[in-house]
Structure formats: structure tokens, C-alpha cells
């Protein structure tokens, strides 16, 4: 097991390096003069040159990359020239919000998708199964922002049960926090549950054809035990895979949802940075998010080994 983890970690390093390279390239190679952006109206040829020299923009590109990388590895991601906050400070402030949102959304998607998948697999081919499969397919064609608008219209405008925007930290007011988080996480959950349900359902249908399920039936076990212990466990591997794959989409969705519902998370930080042309924040946040994404995928890989003892012991 230790060997397994070590090998995977080794693979992680080059990917992270590549991610940093790509982020840096976007910032440096694309048209758009950073100094010009910062100074904007007050730009003169003198202070432009001075600022460029100050920021090291006149150095050769590979030197700039290593200087930048050096700063990063020491924890210095730069400082926003608009707000004066360091990137790390800004991210640390907003990370809990985004994490709470994504966590609630993923839990919601699992809470909807997994039971539906199990019921549909157990009654595959029947009317409920066909209805649910069709609904799941249709839901895949509903963009996140569309669900958001629908939910806002239904719950905030018409029924007035829940607020459309706003946020209060959990530590301050747990109930209020959850009230503000219901619509945003529900929106994301609605976007994620179809893929979970479809994949788990088809995996379970395949599992239910296996010999060991026939034997479990022949042993006189209850249908509940057969479904939840004998069938769900082998299929749970796919669940981990699909959750892992969805994280990329979840991050993108969180960005949209945070903007729509005015939640002070990382997504909104990013969008704000784009609108105010705060390129240092932009670069820092992109790097952090991408690196986080790579690390999460790494953890998902590890979870495989935990769930399937065959992988742990080296038999595929």
C-alpha cells in the first residue's frame, strides 16, 4: 500500500510543474501589457518603464518564470494592486465558502442520485426506471445557470421561502448560513445528480447479473442486504470515479452559482478579478485552483485502493 501511494505521489510532481508552467504562460505570453493595465489612465512612457522594471517584466521570460516560481514556493503569491491584500489572504478568506458550497452540493447530488440509481437498477426496464432515466437525460441539458434562475423564481420570487442572494458565515449564524446555502447548493446538486445516477445505475445493473448475486439470492439473504451490501459495494468504485471526474465541473459550476447568488467565495473572487483586471489575483487564484484540482484527483485515486481490495493487493 505504501508503495502504491509513493508511486502516485511521484507522478503528481511533474503534473504540478506543468500546471504552473501553463498558468504562467497564459499570463505572460498572451497579448496584454500588465503594466499598462495597472497604470491605465495614468500611464506615461516613464512610469510604464519604471513599473515594468520594478515588476521584473523586462527580464527574459525563463528568468521571470523561475523568479515567480521561487516566490510561489515560499508562499508569496503576490499582492493585489487594487485591494492591497495578498493572494493567499484573499483566498483564505473565501475558501470556506466555496468548500461549503461544493460539499453541500456533492452531498445533495449523492443523496438524490444514489437512491434513485439503486431503485432503478433493482427495477430496471420498468416504468419508474424509464421515467427516471429520461428525466436524468433531460436534466443534463439544463445548464446550471438555468436551474439557478428557475429555483430563484420559484422559491425566492413566487413562494418567498428562501433568499435569492446573500451570505452569513456558519460560525456566526448556522441556521442563517444554511438558509442562504440551500438554493445555491440545490442548484449545483441538480446539475450533478444525473451523471451520478446514470453511471451508478448501469454499473449496478451489470453487477446484478454477476454470479455472486445469484449465490447471494440462493443463500436466502434479504433483497435489501443483496442490494446494499453485495451489489452496491462493488459498484461504489464507479461512484468514486464519477465524483472525482465531476469535481472539475463542480468547480466551474460553483463559480457560476457564487456569482448568481452573490456568495463571497473563490469563484466570485475570480470573476471580480477579471472585471477589475486584477491580473495578479487572477494568476494566483488560477494556479491555486488548478493545483488543488490535481491534488483532489490524486486523493480520489487513493480512494480506489481503499474500496477495491484487489487493487490494494496488486490483482487488478
Amino acid at each position, binding site marked *: 500500500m505504501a508503495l502504491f501511494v509513493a508511486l502516485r505521489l511521484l507522478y503528481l510532481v511533474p503534473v504540478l510543474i506543468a500546471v504552473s508552467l501553463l498558468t504562467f504562460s497564459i499570463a505572460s505570453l498572451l497579448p496584454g501589457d500588465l503594466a499598462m493595465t495597472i497604470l491605465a489612465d495614468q500611464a506615461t512612457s516613464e512610469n510604464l518603464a519604471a513599473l515594468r522594471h520594478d515588476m521584473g517584466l523586462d527580464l527574459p521570460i525563463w528568468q521571470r518564470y523561475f523568479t515567480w516560481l521561487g516566490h510561489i514556493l515560499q508562499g508569496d503569491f503576490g499582492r493585489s494592486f487594487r485591494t492591497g491584500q495578498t493572494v493567499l489572504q484573499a483566498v483564505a478568506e473565501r475558501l470556506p465558502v466555496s468548500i461549503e458550497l461544493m460539499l453541500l452540493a456533492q452531498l445533495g447530488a449523492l443523496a438524490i442520485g444514489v437512491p434513485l440509481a439503486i431503485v432503478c437498477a433493482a427495477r430496471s426496464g420498468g416504468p419508474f426506471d424509464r421515467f427516471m432515466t429520461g428525466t436524468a437525460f433531460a436534466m443534463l441539458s439544463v445548464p446550471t445557470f438555468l436551474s439557478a434562475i428557475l429555483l430563484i423564481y420559484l422559491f425566492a420570487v413566487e413562494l418567498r421561502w428562501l433568499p435569492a442572494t446573500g451570505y452569513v458565515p456558519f460560525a456566526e449564524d448556522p441556521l442563517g448560513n444554511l438558509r442562504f446555502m440551500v438554493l445555491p447548493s440545490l442548484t449545483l446538486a441538480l446539475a450533478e445528480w444525473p451523471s451520478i445516477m446514470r453511471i451508478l445505475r448501469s454499473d449496478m445493473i451489470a453487477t446484478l447479473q454477476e454470479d455472486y448475486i445469484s449465490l447471494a439470492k440462493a443463500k436466502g439473504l434479504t433483497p435489501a442486504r443483496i442490494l446494499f451490501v453485495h451489489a452496491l459495494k*462493488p459498484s461504489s468504485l464507479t461512484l468514486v470515479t464519477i465524483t472525482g471526474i465531476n469535481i472539475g465541473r463542480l468547480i466551474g459550476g460553483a463559480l457560476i452559482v457564487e456569482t448568481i447568488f452573490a456568495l463571497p467565495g473563490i469563484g466570485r473572487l475570480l470573476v471580480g478579478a477579471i472585471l477589475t483586471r486584477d491580473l495578479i489575483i487572477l494568476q494566483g487564484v488560477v494556479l491555486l485552483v488548478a493545483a488543488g484540482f490535481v491534488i483532489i484527483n490524486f486523493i480520489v485515486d487513493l480512494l480506489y485502493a481503499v474500496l477495491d481490495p484487489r487493487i490494494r493487493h496488486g490483482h487488478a
Partner: protein
Amino acid sequence: MTGRPLLSVEDVAVDLPTPRGNLRAVDRVNLTVGAGQTLGVVGESGCGKTMLSRAILQLLPKKAKLTGRAIFDGQDLVSLDREKLRKLRGRSLAVVFQDPMTSLNPVLTIGTQLIETLQEHLGLDLAATRKRSVELLAAVGIPAPEQRLMQYPHQLSGGMRQRVAIAIALSCEPKLLIADEPTTALDVTIQAQILDLLAREQRRRHMAMILITHDLGVVAGRTDEVAVMYAGRVVERAPTPALFKKMRMPYTEALLAAIPKLDAAPHTVLPAISGRPPDPTRPLKGCSFSPRCRYAVARCHGEKPELTEAETPAHQFACFHPIEMPAAVPA
């Protein structure tokens, strides 16, 4: 065999709808097994013997249509309600499948798979089930049984896995054990051990057993009665010694001839049965074996033979000109 048989299969037929037409996998089979008796069911692959066992256990695929009755211990399994059937299975009626690699759940420990059966049917607490599981594993000949409880199926050899499957089947003292080709997926060297284990446990527990196999050699000396199946029907049925001494079906004779004999000269060519079993979606008008039978005459191609009695009512066969001569008992 005295008194009411433990299992009585009456006119059981299994039909499967396929894109090419209806597939008659099992064609009106009648069998009985008495308490403590062993019935051997022999036939080539595709003859319907596995379908028959699934039919008895009510484990057929969803689209299959089952007719007939299977009376087990006074209850008809075919029409029994689901909850009662579930209580019977694993408890009074147990099964061992062919391939223990696929019949044991790969992500659950051996212990879990043993204990859950005991808990479900006998309602024992965890400590008692663990103790019982260790005893069972020891009884089927698995060394270091306590360690095995925490292991997964892929960590054991094929023979060990099948022993575990047998332990699971025996755990609640069933009255009838159906063993569907229990040794086919195993090494030749292990096969005899497993068969001996089954026979030993059967005698000890006074359990009835149905031993399904394609190998006539397996049933010699290990069964009380043998039923030979071909193309979904029982074509000959007799107490084992009678079958080997006085077989009547040309198919049975051909099967016997195909068993390698210890006392034959080296490099003797095994007489294989030429041709292939018929397409089950296109049943023949006459006897299903007639295209491959070396004794076949016109009547065999035109008419289907029914089961008729030989010298004793226990010995039945379905043939228009059975063999009269006794055959040599295999080594």
C-alpha cells in the same frame, strides 16, 4: 428409496424467448431425490442441466417462462411466495456453483459471506457465528481457519475457494445440496478431493444431493441414481449400478466410451461423439440424438421417443431401439 421423496420435479419446462425464436432449455423433466440420496445429472454443455438447477432454485433469468412443479419437502417451489422461498433458500436448500471465483463476492471477506448466512437463518449473535464459521472452515479442510475469515476470495487458491463455497452451503445444515459442476473449474488434482469432501459431508449430515456434471466418470460410485440429459430432456434414468451395467440409450453408451480408462493402452484414441447438440430454437421432429446416433433408423428421425421402463420401474430410457448388451464398468 422409501416414503415420499424429498424433492420431486414434475413436468418442469423452461422456455426462453430469443430473437431467433423460442428456446426450450428444459423439456418436461421429471426427477425425484429421496432424503439422504444422491442424484447425478449428466449431460454435455447446453443440454439444459444448469437451467434445470436454476429452475428448481427459482433463479432463472427474468424473461424465462417456467412451467411444472418442484415439490420440495411438501411445498411447491414454483408457486411458493417470495418470503417463504427466501427462508428455505440457504437453510434447507443450498447450492454450490461451478466457478468459485465468480460465485463469491470479491469485495467482501470470507468471514462476512459465511457469517451473513448464519445470522440470517439461525439468528445467532456475532460471537457464536464466528465460532461456527471457524468450525465450518476446518470441517471442509481449510488450514488456519481463523485467519481466513479476514481474507478475500482472491487471496485463496481455486480449490480453497470452492471449499469455502461448500462451507457456506453447508452452514445451516441443508436437507438438499445442489452442486452444479462443482469441480469443472478446478485443477484435476483437486477435483477428486472436492468430490470426496462433498460425499463425506453428505453422509455425515444425511443430506440429499444433486450432483450435476458433464463427466459420467464423476458420478460412478458417488451417486445412488443417475439421470442422463440431452437437448433439454431426460433420456435415461436408472440407479447407478444399473446404468453402468445395463445402459440402454446409445447416447449413454457414447458418453461412457468417451471417458478415458486407466487400463487402456497409451495413446488410445478417445471415441468422441461426432456432430453437435441440436439448435434448441429449432427442435427436431424425431429423437434429438438421432443425427449423431449410430443405431438410428427411420423411425428415430420421424417420431420422438417417450420414457419407457426397462426391467425395473426405476430404470427408464427414451429410445426406439435400446442397447440390450451390458457394458463394462469404467475404471
